[in-house]
């Protein structure tokens, strides 16, 4: 199954075009890096692929079909700041189970402890919260994962911990991953193919 973006164009209301004529595809099981200078529209493109924004031009297809509009989304996005991506008034156990109920083996691999379920988000560190956000997004129906600077705010050790698990799960579930990051070293380490947005984006040099 392919996640395809064809001729994507996007801008906010009447602002300048952020993206224009961007083509891209990821196959299942493939890990692709998306790099580019800050402000070049990397995150916006990630949001479009995951259905968080609708492109003004072009379209995103999953296996030839448009992205579904209801139900659990097969393209999931994990954000940079986990503090914003969890409800501060929910215990983390509820947040974890919002989309599906992750099995114990996944939680163990991600280093999520049962004891954290009763805690509130402000009682855990960013690294610990991000593990919850990742577990939440790795449901059995997830075909593609967009990791938008997923580990940028974390220290190198946590970053390595998390990526090792995510890569393993991706392989097991035959999941495609788009790694959006400005860190070349990380992208080089993780990805089999690297896309430079400034090159595929026709509106920017």
């Amino acid at each position, binding site marked *: 199954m392919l996640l395809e973006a064809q001729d994507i164009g996007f801008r906010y209301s009447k602002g300048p075009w952020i993206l224009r004529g961007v083509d891209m595809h990821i196959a299942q099981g493939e890990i692709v890096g998306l790099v580019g200078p800050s402000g070049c529209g990397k995150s916006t493109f990630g949001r479009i692929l995951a259905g*968080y924004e609708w492109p003004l031009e072009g379209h995103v297809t999953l296996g030839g079909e448009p992205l579904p509009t209801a139900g659990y989304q097969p393209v999931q996005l994990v954000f940079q700041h986990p503090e*914003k991506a969890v409800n501060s008034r929910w215990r983390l156990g509820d947040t974890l189970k919002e989309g599906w109920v992750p099995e114990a083996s996944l939680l163990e691999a991600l280093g999520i402890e049962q004891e954290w379920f009763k805690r509130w988000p402000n009682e855990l560190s960013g690294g610990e919260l991000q593990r919850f956000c990742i577990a*939440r997004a790795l449901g059995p129906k997830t075909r593609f994962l967009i990791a938008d600077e997923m580990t940028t705010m974390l220290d190198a050790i946590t970053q390595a911990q998390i990526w090792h698990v995510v890569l393993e799960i991706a392989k097991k579930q035959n999941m495609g991953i788009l790694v959006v990051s400005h860190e070349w070293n990380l992208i080089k380490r993780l990805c089999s193919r690297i896309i430079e947005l400034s090159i595929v984006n026709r509106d920017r040099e």
Partner: protein
Amino acid sequence: MINIDALREKRSLGFRLPRFNRRQQTLITILLMIIFLSSVIVGGALLGNERIATNFETKNLSPSLKHPFGTDWLGRDMLTRTLKGITLSMGVGMLAATVSAFIALILGLLAATMGKWADTVVTWLVDLFLSVPHLVALILIAFALGGGMKGVIIGVAFTHWPSLTRVIRAEVLQLRSAEFIQVSKKMGKSRWWIAVKHILPHLIPQFFIGLMLLFPHAVLHEASITFLGFGLSPHQPAIGIILSESMRYLSTGMWWLAFFPGLSLLIMVRAFDILGDHLHMLMDPHHAHN
């Protein structure tokens, strides 16, 4: 956990802990206010009618130990009348404020979740009601409904929602663009589910604080329109009635007739205000840890 008293002895670059921490002080204040307010209200409700029966032997007495607030031209004890008046006014105010807060909650939610059209209508209504002085709108509504208890409650309820609506609408708008709400949609959750499970828990503190801060307004406005003669009927022992009747006797030197009831009303309203402020402090995360 570290013993705080031991730490206090150590040299520190600033900040000493008071004897009670802030949250304890806040809670103590809240408890005091609740005890005070409820004793006045319950007291007023339980008091019998014998002290406010007409008794010409005791008419026009200035304040004394037996009648701390004095008596009126019919020999009725002013303290009892004031207590009963406050109880009634508070009851009317609370009912009206609660209705008002619920209107605000519903309109705020509607405006922020039902799309552009609903938002335009609600915003327009808010602006409309805010542009007319409360009292004018209140009088119009109460008068149109024929005055009396029903007129006052509906009048107050329908004029006090706009500011809280604004607060709630802004809060919902902000929440709607929050990442965790967007993620929830991608988890396949419906609009309704998100509104109830995600958004509502964030609104509850705002709602209660808003409600608390509405009380004093509602009570004062109830008293005002009653005083002006558009509110409760003269047969009801409302504080506004007491004040307006007393006006006629002020020129004869019977100052206590208006002074004590008026002062009591102010104290009660202020007590509610303090209660609301302290609840706000308790719930608002910006103050939470000071």
